[in-house]
């Protein structure tokens, strides 16, 4: 009796799975298995923006520099590993756009107990995408998310503090492109 019950349950699950595959293959908007890209730190920034969330703030480098050394602030560099190794803002963690969802979650974990996240990239736009995603993942209304206007180039031009080499305290793998 129990074997019949289990057999029927499996039958339903398998029938549903087969139909699911058929429906997915037939519909234009279905998941394409070979093309699906897992989420990364650039995952859903656009969606968060579309949902009406307040945009992240953009600050000139000199203003953002006033937050350096603040224990309540986390800095994140979204540029490539090579660019990060050549020089980055002191104390920043490396979190490029292509980082995995795990790296993004690890960054969110590092935000615990902090009130401000400062993100910078090559320019303003690339940092904004990652900043939006981190804000969405953090899910904290009290978290102040900022982007450095003009990115690291503007920071360097302003003669603000930099350091070189791998991030000493990132605690997450650097992804080389």
């Amino acid at each position, binding site marked *: *009796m129990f074997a*019949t*019950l*289990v*057999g*029927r*349950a*499996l*039958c*339903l*699950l398998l*029938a*549903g*799975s087969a*139909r*699911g*595959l058929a*429906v*997915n293959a037939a*519909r234009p*908007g*279905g*998941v*394409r*298995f070979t093309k*699906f890209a*897992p*989420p990364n730190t650039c*995952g*859903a920034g656009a969606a968060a923006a579309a*949902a009406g969330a307040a945009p992240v703030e953009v600050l000139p480098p000199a203003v953002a520099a006033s937050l350096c050394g603040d224990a309540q602030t986390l800095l994140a560099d979204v540029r490539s590993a090579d660019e990060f190794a050549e020089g980055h803002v002191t104390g920043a963690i490396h979190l490029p756009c292509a980082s995995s*969802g*795990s790296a993004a*979650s690890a960054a*969110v*974990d590092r935000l615990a107990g902090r009130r401000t996240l400062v993100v910078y990239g090559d320019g303003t736009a690339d940092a904004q995408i990652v900043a939006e995603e981190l804000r969405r*993942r*953090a*899910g904290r209304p009290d978290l102040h998310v900022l982007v450095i206007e003009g990115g690291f180039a503007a920071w360097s031009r302003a003669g603000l503090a930099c350091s070189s080499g791998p991030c000493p305290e990132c605690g997450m793998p650097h992804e080389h492109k």
Partner: protein
Amino acid sequence: MKALALVLRLGLGGLLIVAGALKLRAPVAFATELANYQLLPALAPYVAALLPVVELVVGGALVVAPRAWRRAAALGALALLAAFTVAVGSAFFRGINIDCGCFGTGGGPITGLTLARNVVLMAAAAAIVAFEDRARA
């Protein structure tokens, strides 16, 4: 007990149908929600393709199937809900801040309430298996 089984069966069946239909509307977004769980992310697109229709089939069977198949549908629902609970619990206890994806995209973040709801639904499915008429095949 028959009345209770009927209420639970229609309620759980309806819930699975709604959940499956909502997930079916945006399968790619649902695959992303699944990958965010960080549990075998490579399987996320496959699960996203299968799961909505499996929920529709199991939910539909709970509501309209002949008596002989209702308990089987409840057992299938119990298996699905157990898998969901493991995934949700894993994300909750690892402290991963992600959307549940329980009803497609925009279902809200995973909280202790999400976990508790899943446990209650599992209990409902188990009750249907226990109390539903054991009709002959």
